[in-house]
């Protein structure tokens, strides 16, 4: 259960990598990964390659990020999500709020 992040050189893009379980236990790390930056990135990428599970609190955290990133104008994409994770995102209609990329 770790959250790591990496900004692009010009700071316009932030990649957040979530490993293991994505639930309430990582909410501080998750928020910290984007709230502590000196400038707000224009675009966010959530790398879920190694995200094993997620629950509804993770969905809440995703919405928090979306509002932080500008609400309806937010540019957030989720990539490499497993089929289980995608299913949960789909059930919650999160496809309409986030760009869910097909696996590489």
């Amino acid at each position: 259960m770790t959250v790591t992040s990496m900004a692009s050189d010009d700071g316009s893009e932030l990649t957040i990598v979530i490993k293991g379980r994505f639930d309430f236990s990582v909410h501080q790390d998750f928020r910290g990964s984007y709230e502590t930056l000196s400038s707000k990135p224009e675009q966010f990428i959530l790398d879920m390659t190694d995200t094993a599970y997620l629950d509804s609190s993770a969905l809440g955290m995703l919405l928090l990020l979306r509002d932080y990133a500008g609400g309806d104008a937010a540019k957030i994409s989720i990539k490499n999500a497993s089929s289980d994770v995608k299913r949960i995102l789909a059930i919650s209609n999160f496809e309409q709020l986030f760009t869910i990329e097909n696996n590489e």
Partner: protein
Amino acid sequence: MGSRKDERLITVLVADDTSTDRLILEAILRKQGHRVLSAEDGEQAVAVYSAERPDIVLLDALMPKLDGFAAARQIKTLAGEELVPILFLTSLTDADSLVKCLDAGGDDFLSKPYNPVILQAKIRSFFRMRAMQRTMLEQRDQIARHNEHFLQEQTVAKQVFDNITSGGQVDSKHLRYYLSPLAVFNGDVMVASTTPAGNLMLLLGDFTGHGLPAAIGAMPLATTFYGMVEKGFAMSDILAEINSKLKSILPVGLFCCASMVEMNFRKNTVRIWNGGLPAAYLHRNDGQVEQIKSSHLPLGVLSNKKFKSDPALISMAHGERLYLWSDGIHEARDLDGEMYGDDRLLAEFANNQQPDELFDDLLKSVKHFVGLSEKSDDLSLVELLMAPVDIADVNPDSQVVTTQSQLAEWGLTFEIKPSSFAIFDPLPLLLSVLLEVPGLRNHSGTLYTVISELYTNALEHGVLGLDSSIKDAPDGFDRYYQLRRDKTQTIQNGFVKIDLAHKMQADGGSLTIIVADSGSGFSLADYTQKNDKHYSGRGLKLVQSLCDTLEVRGDGNIVAATFCWHTDD
């Protein structure tokens, strides 16, 4: 004297009944540095040869007891395949006598009076010949040993393959296959087994390399295959696992081209994954042939992160057949070196009137084409037939395994007490129990979410009495979880009880999850009225979507969900 460093002492046997001649020969030979043994008649000559095994034998033709010719024959017999040069000492001049010498096994003559220079030249030359022959024999023996080793290796490789491929149940009306011994030696391997759901799972592989190196890769492939098929793992998981095993054990450059197939005889579908083998052919009832080409890299090449184990799903009507092969058939060559190739294969399909006979016809056609050329039997061919399953076809062994060694019908109750709320997360433990059920394994993500939701709700709202509306503001999230942390550390009373029960059903099984808490309960109707934009309140809706049933019991402090799985999932 005269012996160079690399020439060991040459031992020469002189047999002559005339003492004068013998004395002279002995003297010449000794002077030339050779070791000399003497005999006065043929019998003595044979006895001395047998005892001392001299390098070269000089025989007088006419001797008492046993003449030179007879002695020569006996000595040649004693020598076996060793070359013992025999020179006849003679003043015979007529052609008949000379021929007699050669017939008796003589290699040359030495005429009287003896010429020391010629004698020395002949001794040296025959000794060299003998040494050469000895080297040749050693090399021949070495080659024979290598060959034996090779044959042994081939046998071991074959045995290894046979052992590992015999682990599965491959006798069924749905499956016909032919793997020639040479194909097996060249690294072809086929494993097939019936899944707990009654599907036929099959993998045909072609390892690069041959003999033992290829067999070494086949072992983990087969054990992984049989182990996972028996436990009900999905085809994509099995492929990923085999890929990862092969990637880690095989040296770079050694990998396994493979096709994997899962035949579902109830839904009349086939899942197929082709990584590097020639296109599989699907023979339709109307005579059309569809090719399923390789769209993946072979097993053991990519790391699991990059490996794609997504099989294609294709419908197959009853009577339709799927053909898999390694490149042995396409690359089979006739005596002129021409390859059998795709066109001939397609023609064979096009000409076929009796689908029942396609399998035999294909083999016959390739074998006929190849004729007597050496690669005549490097063939692997698999035919899978879509047909209804008979009761008799269901593999009894795998049923025994299912009921004896795997969780099927069971229940457990797990209660978490206040002192554990802060430090203990029950999910990994419960999930590991659930994953013992083969049919639930494919749903671990879903089950995690369901149980996580129910437990979190019971703990946070039921036991701790937290109000999720705190989370409606962005900074509320932190506040909410801070409260949760504080409360779990100080709480003295309350519990969350989780009941899990699983039972088998005709086409799968069902899991009942009941989570009860010590709280005062809630109303499902109120709960589900929140709107989508809230940061919270999604949990139970999610559970509702993921499960087959969801009900709230008691005062609203008991939630029961059932999750059904099907063998075809």
